[in-house]
């Protein structure tokens, strides 16, 4: 009786084994497919890895180029400012000379009038003096120059003001650099995890855009008419009467 039970168990185990083999037979093509897939994927992953490594290695060059652009812009801006300052200085000195000429001319007119009085009765001399006065157009000639100088000064000052764009673009480029460096840092860590490849890291700033109040640049810097923004700042400053503003007070201003 016990033998029959043992045989039953044996047959059950053999059936299990048969099922396993049967299942295994079905699994073989799937496993083969998986092996084929892995065989195709590994070179692909290696390509991706190499591509990331190459891109990552190029990033320091990109950030350097952006930094060079900023430096070149700053240098060019400084040269423009130097030139504008030199023009303004020349205009200022020319104005002094012209004002002196006008002052001298006014003294001459005074003397002409005195001479006119002294020559009264001498028609010939009076005639000659009248001719001299009519020929002397110094004031009429130089006075318009002062107006031209004023226009040049205004133009030069406007150029100076427009150069604020340099500071604003420098901040925008610094923000781009920061982003690139952050990407490089992330790629480097991915690469290290992936294949322990040794990629030269560039220095990454510690601050994040989320706390740009402490950054040396404003990622949202824009060169455009800020009239509306200035109005908002003015309202905040004026309505809070230069005291500490609560969020509620501020919100009321904008509701």
């Amino acid at each position, binding site marked *: 009786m016990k033998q029959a039970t043992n045989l039953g168990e044996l047959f059950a185990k053999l059936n299990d084994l048969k099922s396993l083999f049967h299942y295994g037979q079905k699994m073989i093509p799937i496993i083969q497919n998986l092996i084929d897939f892995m065989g195709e994927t590994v070179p692909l992953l290696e390509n991706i890895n190499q591509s990331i490594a190459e891109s990552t290695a190029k990033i320091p060059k990109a950030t350097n180029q952006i930094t060079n652009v900023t430096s070149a812009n700053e240098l060019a801006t400084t040269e423009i400012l130097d030139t504008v300052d030199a023009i303004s200085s020349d205009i200022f000195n020319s104005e002094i000379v012209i004002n002196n000429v006008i002052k001298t001319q006014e003294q001459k007119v005074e003397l002409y009038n005195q001479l006119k009085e002294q020559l009264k009765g001498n028609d010939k001399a009076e005639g000659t003096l009248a001719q001299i006065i009519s020929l002397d157009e110094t004031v009429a000639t130089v006075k318009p120059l002062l107006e031209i100088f004023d226009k040049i000064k205004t133009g030069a000052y406007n150029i100076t003001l427009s150069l*604020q764009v340099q500071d604003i673009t420098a*901040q925008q480029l610094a923000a781009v650099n920061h982003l690139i460096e952050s990407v490089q840092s992330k790629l480097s860590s991915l690469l290290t995890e992936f294949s322990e490849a040794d990629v030269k890291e560039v220095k990454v700033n510690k601050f994040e855009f989320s706390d740009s*109040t402490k950054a040396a640049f404003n990622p949202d*810097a824009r060169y455009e008419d800020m009239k509306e923004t*200035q109005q908002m700042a003015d309202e905040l400053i004026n309505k809070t009467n230069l005291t500490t503003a609560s969020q509620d007070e501020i919100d009321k201003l*904008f509701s």
Partner: protein
Amino acid sequence: MDLKFLVVDDSVTMRRIVINSLRNLGYAEFVEAQDGKDALEKLAADDSITFVITDWNMPIVSGLELIRAIKTDAKLCKLPVLMVTTRGIKEDIIEALNAKVNNYIVKPFTPHILKEKIDQILSNLS
């Protein structure tokens, strides 16, 4: 009123533009600083400075930190501070107000705005 300005900005260009503008407004005395730390050193070394114009985003010590340092210092707290910055969102202005900035200009500025804000600060002080 004779004012001696401390112009704080990490951009050489901006410092020159601000100083040129102040010169056009008839002011003649200026000290420059390239960040908040430099500004605090200049303030410690020169007690004849009567007005501070500062940027916000600067390395080492920001403009906001500079304002907080000035306004919490017993010797410097009455010094007027005008912020000139590209930061124009509401939260930034509130933060600057809470730090007790005296007035606020959003870059790019015009000479008219600069004069208006300096005059406002001076009239509030007198």
